[in-house]
């Protein structure tokens, strides 16, 4: 059983700083897209900020993550530079991937952001490989695979958890259960009420946690990380959450039963965590605003940087296909 201790103040504030960056980045992204200044498929993570923040506050740069199209929050929490992220979302040459990958394929190895996939389930097999490399190298670095609730029904989930368990790989499977896969309800596609239950099929720990509760998340992650670093193998974590802006930017909510979203928004981790910090005396409103303002400034600068950055040259089509440049 994971402990239930409140992390030290500086950790709580570090987590807040990450959540603030994520929250404001998402707000800004939706504005910029709405304004037409940026055209891209955008999968808002608003409502899911606590999940990567409470985890990444406990990770090293050398720990790796593998995430999905809905992964900007994971990237930022892991330390992906805001300006390069924005430039990538804008398809510019200063982006993490020179604009060639785009928002669905952001990669930044220096911060441990190894892969972002657009294929449901495919973050998991690769995360196993990153973990296997750590094991072979004899380091105690961990590999994290982020994925969604609907991804737990695809074969890659099963194969990856079984392989990770059999090989005792230092990988943490973090499933954000936001109750929907695109427009289809979780209950309609998953045979069991809790994804965490499926850990039984692999003989590994499975935890269902409140994805809006930073402290609960923190403790569950800590146990999983300790296990992984100690060579005891993988953990499956199901974090209950909700995506406040639907599947992709521009979605309507027609497919959601009335009141469902409102109920979720009432448990918005963002104001709740601010309240937790202030009520608990960990910070004043003013402290938190200062953090927010700093991030807003960073984001503003990043947007400007991105939009000022040039588009890649057409020659890039012949580069990075193979190590050796192709001849036009």
């Amino acid at each position, binding site marked *: 059983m994971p402990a239930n201790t409140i992390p030290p103040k500086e950790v709580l504030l570090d987590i807040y700083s990450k959540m603030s960056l994520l929250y404001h980045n998402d707000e800004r992204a939706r504005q910029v897209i709405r304004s037409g200044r940026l055209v891209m498929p955008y999968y808002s993570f608003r409502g899911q900020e606590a999940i990567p923040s409470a985890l990444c506050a406990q990770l090293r740069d050398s720990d790796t993550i593998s995430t999905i199209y809905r992964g900007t929050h994971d990237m930022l929490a892991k330390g992906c530079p805001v300006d390069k992220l924005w430039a990538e979302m804008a*398809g510019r040459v200063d982006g993490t991937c020179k604009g060639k990958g785009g928002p669905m394929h952001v990669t930044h190895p220096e911060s441990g952001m190894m892969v972002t996939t657009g294929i449901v389930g495919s973050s998991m097999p690769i995360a196993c490989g990153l973990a296997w490399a750590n094991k072979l190298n004899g380091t105690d670095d961990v590999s994290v695979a982020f994925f969604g609730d609907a991804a737990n029904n695809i074969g890659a989930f099963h194969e990856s958890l079984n392989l990770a368990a059999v090989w005792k790989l230092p990988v943490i499977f973090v499933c954000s259960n936001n109750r929907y896969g695109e427009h289809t309800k979780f209950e309609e596609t998953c045979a069991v009420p809790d994804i965490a239950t499926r850990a039984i099929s692999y003989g590994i720990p499975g935890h269902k946690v409140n994805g809006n509760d930073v402290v609960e998340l923190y403790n569950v992650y800590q146990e999983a990380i300790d296990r992984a670093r100690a060579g005891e193998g993988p953990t499956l974590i199901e974090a209950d959450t909700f995506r406040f802006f639907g599947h992709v930017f521009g979605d309507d909510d027609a497919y959601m039963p009335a009141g469902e979203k409102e109920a979720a928004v009432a448990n918005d981790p963002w104001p709740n965590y601010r309240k937790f910090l202030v009520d608990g005396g960990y910070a004043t409103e003013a402290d938190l605003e200062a953090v927010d303002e700093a991030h807003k400034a960073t984001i503003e600068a990043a947007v400007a940087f991105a939009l000022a950055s040039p*588009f890649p040259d057409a020659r890039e089509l012949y580069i990075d*296909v193979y190590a050796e440049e192709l001849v036009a």
Partner: protein
Amino acid sequence: MSDKINMIQAINWALDDAMAADKKVLVLGEDVADHTGGGVVGVTRGLSEKYGRERVVSTPISETAFTGAAIGAAMMGFKPVVEIMLMNFMTVCSDMIVNHAAKLRFMSGGQTSVPMVIRTMTGPGFGSGGQHSDFMEGWYAHTAGLKVVIPSTPADAYGLMRSAIDDPDPVIFVENGPMLFAPGEAPVRGTKVEIGKAKTIREGKDVTVIGYGRIIQTFAAHAAKLDDLSVEIIDLRSVQPWDRAAVLASVKKTGAAVVVHEACKEFGPGGEIASTIHENLFSDLRGAVVRLGAKFSAVPFSNPLETAYVPSAQEIEAACRNLVRVPA
């Protein structure tokens, strides 16, 4: 009924008419039922309300399982229309398509068959990047037992879908994403388009341009503006089987041919068409058949790269002029 509709509407009509005509017709895939949005772009909208959720089923994200389920149902005499949301996702269930759907008739000596349709969307032009835009028709056309169609107008989409559903063998029905929203002549409901029959969308005498999908329509619009170059344009509509007779007749007349597609040129479907022309009309040709296709890279995200990735109408024109020695 307006006389201009888009391809989404046209395919929706085809499914609707086919389901009304034959109780054995089923629709399945992610999000296809109305309570889940009626399909990611609405192609299946209204069908579950009209024909019931037994016949129009939203599936878990398990392409292997639900494509297999469609195969099994087809073997029992149903006519499932499966949606694999995007063509790149067909790679997670290629075994079901290539080793099973395509081969069961042959391997059983004709005792079983798989009269199913696989609908899938793809195409550069959406800024969806490397894992959401690939054209893989070449592989399926190379797989004995499969048929492949790629309509370029709403009317053809309607007519080909009706024929695909009637077809006793598995048909891969490719929906060109960026074209789905373009309005065109409304189909006459009930009018089917024979699989394997091309359409000459422009008559000409100097050179024949052969292709399918979005690129052939883009070039047709462009060619209409060229008064010093008489181009005959053939929209194959079906890639497997393809209309050799129509292509050979036209090229015999013009003595010059350009083959275009949005799939990569290298080892792409154009090689089959170009080779067949050479094999049959070698001495009638003024020069070697020209193949044009996408650059040999993953589909890039950055807009200018994505544009440069696919051959432009100007490049196709230049190839024609070069062949027939008509300077611009």
